[in-house]
């Protein structure tokens, strides 16, 4: 059994602020926004496809990263102590994601959801009217997403709060950090009590979050992907989507952590061999798992050969249109990460790990688009245009900005480490009750 050393005093370190980074992020956002506006005038359908697929992707990796924080919390993992905050920081994108969801719910109607028009004539779609209708769609998306994001933010709030007491005077007198400390430490009960309180609340909410995650992510993928081909259905699409999101969260955590290493000596020391090896193993394992889920769905549909079921696969594997694209997704999500991360060295060497996790992150971005876009594709349309990444820039800018803001405002390594010894914490909790 490996022995994980958590230093008794974790250094207080923030991601350094950088004007260049902010400029770049701002530029990305405005380029993306401009691209979306231009595209909306040219070809609104395609603009919205790009919008939704990017929303799906960035929401996936953000909530997947937060899920990773939850899961390592539930399992009392110690190895990722220096990367916990990185996974938590993705929660900063969630409020933005919620705002970005609103236009989708407000403006997307007949042009996006084929079932609206089919409802008039198609007998099978009429059978689904209780689920496929706009009021219910809007209501369930709002409620589900609010619940999921709310729980995530609640967890992250409790993870950050005890750190606020420990960083007093160690934050370099930064006014923004000070302001957030004021905000987060209302009703402060004292350091020890705060840690016990946070531990309790995080531990209580964590299993519930996992359930809500599975359900809400299923609803999201049903509504924004599956129902776009109203005759098609697959019970696997939910797990495939939310496990992919989890994987994306893990890979992004690895990438951000590797980025932090380049920014400060303390990060470099503490995001060490053990951490890289372990997160590399997870990135590898989930690549295999992604392929397993993908193949599990594919095989059953291929073998069953039911017309309404295989239509979805046929569309995506047609060598004339989407076939090469789907193949590219498989190469990026399975072949390269599998071959690359199989060995021990690539998991440990920061540059190699960064390369392969980047492949995963880009592969998943392509995958999310390939999940939904072919359903709305018509003969003669281009498969992939430059607008897709251009509009993606808007989301990328917001995501990078949100995570960067979080890591510059709050300590980028969690300072209180209750998992240093879960057993003692339990004893303390029992004593506190």
């Amino acid at each position, binding site marked *: 059994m490996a022995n994980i050393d958590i230093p008794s005093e974790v250094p207080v370190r923030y991601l350094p602020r950088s004007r260049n980074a902010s400029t770049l992020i701002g530029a990305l956002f405005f380029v993306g926004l401009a691209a979306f506006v231009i595209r909306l005038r040219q070809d609104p359908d395609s603009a919205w496809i790009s919008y939704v697929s990017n929303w799906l992707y960035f929401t996936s990796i953000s909530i997947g990263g937060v899920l990773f924080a939850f899961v390592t919390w539930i399992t009392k993992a110690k*190895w990722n102590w220096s990367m916990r905050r990185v996974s938590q920081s993705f929660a900063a994108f969630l409020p933005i994601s919620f705002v970005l969801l609103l236009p989708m719910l407000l403006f997307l109607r007949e042009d996006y959801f084929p079932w609206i028009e089919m409802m008039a004539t198609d007998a099978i779609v009429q059978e689904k009217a209780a689920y496929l209708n706009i009021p219910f769609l809007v209501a369930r998306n709002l409620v589900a997403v609010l619940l999921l994001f709310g729980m995530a933010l609640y967890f992250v709030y409790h993870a950050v709060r005890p750190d606020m007491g420990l960083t007093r005077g160690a934050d370099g007198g930064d006014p923004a950090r000070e302001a957030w400390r004021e905000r987060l430490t209302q009703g402060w009960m004292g350091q020890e009590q705060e840690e016990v309180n946070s531990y309790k609340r995080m531990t209580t909410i964590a299993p519930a979050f996992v359930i809500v995650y599975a359900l809400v992510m299923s609803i999201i993928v049903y509504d924004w992907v599956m129902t776009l081909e109203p005759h098609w259905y697959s*019970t*696997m699409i939910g797990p495939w989507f939310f496990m992919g999101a989890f994987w994306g969260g893990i890979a992004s955590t690895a990438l951000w952590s590797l980025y932090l290493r380049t920014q400060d000596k303390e990060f470099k020391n503490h995001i060490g061999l053990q951490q890289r090896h372990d997160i590399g*193993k997870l990135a590898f394992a989930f690549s295999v798992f992604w392929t*397993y889920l993908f193949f599990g769905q594919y095989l*059953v549909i291929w073998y069953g050969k*039911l017309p309404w079921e295989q239509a979805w696969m046929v569309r995506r594997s047609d060598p004339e249109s989407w076939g090469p694209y789907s193949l590219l997704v498989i190469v990026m999500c399975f072949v390269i990460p599998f071959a690359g991360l199989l060995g021990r060295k690539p998991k440990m060497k920061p540059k190699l790990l960064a390369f392969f996790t980047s492949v995963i992150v880009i592969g998943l971005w392509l995958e999310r688009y390939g999940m939904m876009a072919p359903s709305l594709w018509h003969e003669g349309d281009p498969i992939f245009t430059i607008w897709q990444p251009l509009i993606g820039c808007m989301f990328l800018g917001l995501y990078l900005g949100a995570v960067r803001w979080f890591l510059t405002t709050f300590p980028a390594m969690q300072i209180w480490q209750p998992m240093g*010894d879960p057993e003692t914490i339990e004893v303390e909790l029992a004593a506190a009750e």
Partner: protein
Amino acid sequence: MSNATKDPIVRGALAHPDVTRLDDVNRDVLKVLATPGKGWWALFSLASLGLVVFFTSWGWQLYRGIGVTGLNAPVGWGVYITTFVFWVGIAHSGTLISAILFLFRAPWRQAIYRAAEAMTVFAVMTAGLFPLIHVGRLWHAYWLIPYPNSRFLWPNFKSPLVWDVFAITTYFTVSATFFYLGTIPDIAAARDRATGLRKKLYQVISMGWRGTDQQWHHFGKAYIFLAALATPLVLSVHSVVSWDFAVSIVPGWHTTIFAPYFVAGAIYSGVAMVITLVVPIRKVFGLEAYLTTKHFDAMAKLCLLTSMIVGYAYMSEFFMAWYSGEEIERTAFWNRLFGTYWWATWIMLTCNMFVPIMLWFKRVRYSIPALFVISIFVNIGMWFERYVIVVTSLHHEYEPFAWGIYRPSLTEMGILLGSFCWFSFWFLLFTRLLPPIAIQELKEVLPPPMRKQKEAHS
């Protein structure tokens, strides 16, 4: 206490607060192998009696033909396939606990993994009998094995039943090897205390283990490699079993989530079976200090997680059946809930989804009697899950004229009962022959016998 916990090596001491010396481990665990008590003989006689029932029923079926079962059109797969899938499922948690939890560095596994692995091997041995029973003409069973026979006929490689042969034989080979490898140091420990014939046997099967540095080095390497190789197998075996059903277009079978759903269900039933088996072992052999409530708590959490995955699969199946808008799909699932076999479905839902809700409470997870009862519910529920999948789907397929009812015959019940006895027979023998707790891994987490340590404790 807080001082001791600063040293990570003492972590195991917290998990086993009553075991303080390494000598105790050998003594306590190896005493299990001593002369058996009355309780063991009673159980062993019962299992042997069950074996008589098993072979009598099977012999009767061989003599009279497969007609003595309730199998007929349209339900050609009944209790046999149900029980086959059940035992393959049971076989999963062993390798999960020994390989996957090993890779995930979950330290609580060391107390239970030996028993879980043994269970795996015997469960596969039990499951492997069912295709032989089910084919009816046992003397033709070798046809399952792909080889170019005299007429150059090969089995159909597109048939998932052939995949099954490969998946299960691979799984059996790897899990048996893994099981054996892990026991070698412990067999050597047993060898050093045994006398007579037993000593001879242990001498042979411990393969000259001396505990040298080099041997440990090789052992460690081999163990981690096998663990990594066994991990995908845990997922692949039951996925292939699930495809026996899912790749067909029988309503109720043909659904994409089957592979992960079956794997989760298999781990679920397997962990429940570990609880069922380990509770009596702990009691009878006085191993309370080694199998603490913490271990049971961890197993219960694993059960809870897999129960929720299974629950998710049930719900998504029911939802999709409705959402599909297909009359056939909808009828199949409606029939499952409210048709002839409604009772089987509700047993399944109650045992697998509703009863485990109790595991949310810490009090229940820390109560061994409660866990024992829940684990039995889960075992029953998981058997019925397969029964529901096999029978309700087949008896009510597409054409109404081809609907029918299946009732298992006495012979089938005899074989079902007998399979439990066959399994118990081997498992009971195992508890006499091999240390049921991994001595060497237990010692790894206990405080090493050093003078410094002694002072820290006093």
